[in-house]
């Protein structure tokens, strides 16, 4: 039976490679910051170190978990059909849940040893960089403590199993026939519980923004980042709704291109009809854009403001630290984006094959793919900026009376363009490979 769990992993290499990467990152990041905390407790005068590690690690760890959880939910949803089929041949709901738990725990244990190593190495180089800059005491070293890696794996397993409970909820409850029916039609409608949860998180973000306005710059910055993360959670929960609104608006010009051989109309209709799938595709792009935007806004607004007040107050070290953090967030965002877009596009092979069989030309498919990927990327960017807006405005208000945050376009534009290019390239490459498959074989495969 172990074979069955691994069999499922084997048939979806893209989806599970992505999941393995996300879990790997989660375990390494927790190991890394755990090791930093361990270093702080064994180093004399390490309290500054604990402060830096804490401020830095908090966001990174939440982000790592967020990426792990969304990727996990995604990988599990990718095998809904197989799980529903198992139910129809009389697997009990419990067996289905056990199968998924086994996959999750097994995969985490598998990636743990290399992740521990990576986390330890990262902690060492980060610490030595801090020492070089005089941000940590000269003698500080990372102690060989087994606790951080153990906690990292344990925490990831716990969070992973919890996520698995939610991801298997629909498939492991109700009748086998309902489970099967659920796999053929993703309605894009979200349950009342999820809606309620999403609205609570939105409310929380609102409260946080209000709180943020009265804070000192450092606290306000930290709160703004947390707020941006919370907004991401809200988007992941309420996803289909905002995604559908934005895609309908952005899709308008595409629909006008309906004449002739154009794949634009096809793309617009297709994408709008699959709001659920689309919202999974845009969440990681929005994550990437939203967090980097918030980050840029905080850093730039702070520098701009400080430069006005005390011209030399902003140290290079600080800028360095922020740079490392942006790089880290970008890494997570990139992993999540690549993973999601590649698995989503590959999963549509049947749809592309059907379109080919009923007479779509290759050129139409490529155009449709191009239009879709641009639409997806732009939707992600718009949502990302929208997510960053409330916390950014609140942060600007915490520094000045001016609600317009300051962003240096020279730094910001490359991030937006990079996100769009990344998303479009990932989707196009995966899509072109998928439409190159033989359509007849793809369609008749069970």
């Amino acid at each position, binding site marked *: 039976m172990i074979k069955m769990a691994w069999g499922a992993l084997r048939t979806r290499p893209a989806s599970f490679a992505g999941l393995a990467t996300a879990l790997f990152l989660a375990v390494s990041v927790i190991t890394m910051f755990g090791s930093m905390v361990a270093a702080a407790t064994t180093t004399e005068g390490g309290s500054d170190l604990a402060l830096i590690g804490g401020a830095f690690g908090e966001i990174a760890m939440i982000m790592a978990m967020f990426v792990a959880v969304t990727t996990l939910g995604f990988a599990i949803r990718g095998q809904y059909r197989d799980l529903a089929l198992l139910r129809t041949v*009389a697997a009990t709901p419990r067996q289905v849940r056990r199968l998924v738990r086994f996959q999750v725990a097994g995969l985490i244990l598998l990636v743990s040893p290399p992740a521990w190593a990576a986390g330890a190495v990262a902690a060492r180089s980060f610490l030595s960089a801090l020492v070089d800059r005089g941000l940590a005491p000269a003698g500080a070293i990372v102690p060989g403590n087994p606790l951080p890696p153990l906690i990292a794996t344990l925490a990831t397993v716990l969070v992973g199993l919890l996520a698995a409970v939610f991801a298997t909820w629909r498939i492991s409850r109700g009748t086998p*026939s309902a489970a099967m029916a659920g796999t053929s039609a993703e309605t894009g409608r979200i349950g009342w519980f999820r809606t309620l949860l999403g609205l609570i998180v939105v409310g929380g973000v609102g409260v946080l923004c209000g709180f943020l306005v009265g804070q000192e710059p450092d606290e306000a910055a930290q709160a703004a980042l947390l707020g941006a993360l919370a907004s991401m959670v809200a988007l992941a929960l309420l996803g289909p709704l905002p995604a559908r609104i934005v895609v309908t608006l952005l899709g308008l010009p595409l629909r006008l291109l309906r004449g002739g051989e154009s794949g634009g109309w096809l793309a617009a209709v297709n994408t709008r009809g699959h709001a659920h799938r689309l919202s999974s595709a845009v969440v990681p792009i929005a994550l990437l854009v939203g967090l980097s935007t918030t980050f840029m806004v905080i850093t730039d607004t702070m520098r701009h403001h400080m430069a006005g007040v005390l011209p030399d107050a902003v140290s290079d070290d600080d800028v360095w630290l922020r740079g490392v953090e942006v790089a880290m967030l970008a890494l997570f965002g990139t992993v999540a984006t690549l993973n999601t877009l590649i698995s989503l596009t590959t999963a549509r092979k049947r749809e592309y094959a059907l379109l080919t069989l009923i007479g779509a030309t290759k050129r139409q498919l490529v155009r449709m793919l191009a239009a879709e990927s641009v639409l997806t990327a732009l939707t992600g960017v718009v949502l990302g900026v929208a997510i960053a807006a409330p916390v950014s405005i609140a942060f600007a208000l915490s520094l000045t009376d001016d609600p317009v945050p300051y962003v240096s376009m020279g730094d910001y534009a490359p991030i937006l363009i990079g996100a769009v290019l990344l998303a479009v390239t990932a989707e196009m490459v995966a899509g072109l490979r998928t439409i190159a498959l033989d359509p007849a074989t793809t369609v008749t495969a069970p």
Partner: protein
Amino acid sequence: MSLFGNEQVYGVRPEGGGAGREIRVRGLRREFKRGGGRVHALQGVDVTFAPGSFTAVMGPSGSGKTTLLQCVAGMDRPTRGAVHWGPTEITRLREHKLARLRRSTVGFVFQAYNLMPAMTVAENVVLPTRLMGGRVDRARVGRVLTQVGLGGCEKERPGRLSGGQQQRVAIARALYNQPEILFADEPTGALDRNTGREILRLLREGVEEHGRTCVMVTHDPLAASFADRVLMMTDGELVEDLTRPSAAVIAEKLGGLS
């Protein structure tokens, strides 16, 4: 170690059958929400299937045959009404218990086959047994595949088989455990006349030699004439109940349905 732990293996029925369970269906209704409104797929069905009987269910497309089969087999829950397998009211069982009872008692051939694409033919055939934590008998796998005309295909993947071959894998899977009750949704739908007849003989043999209860949905009067009893449905209701009708009678009655 078994991933699924020690699932209780309910006894596979002894050969030769004997006192099987009667299937009683009372006041069965099934509604589906669709768009804004409701579809009444079953509108109060009452029927009893005697142990060791062979019944064919016929009727126009969309008349509720698949829905009836799925509710009676415990795959779906009716909106109202009850289904009993012998003394057990399966419509009251929790999902977990029902799944275990179902796999020890029932074989099901789906209209859409429902094969696992990543598994080989042999692995598909023994999947329900595996889920029960039971032992796999390779010789029996070979025998049941030969019976459906797929001897030697153990290692193939379903994706490389024709539609009719996939359908026969699904039949082999349902028969492998020698179930007490067999439900089959258009089991010969994708087969040519001769292959179809072989499969129907196989079903008939299960009824006569092992006392199996068999309920089969079909559109083909010739296939239905292999059964002892033919039920006809329209709009979610049973409208005919014929005993041992000939193919000609079936075709005539079928033509009379709207």
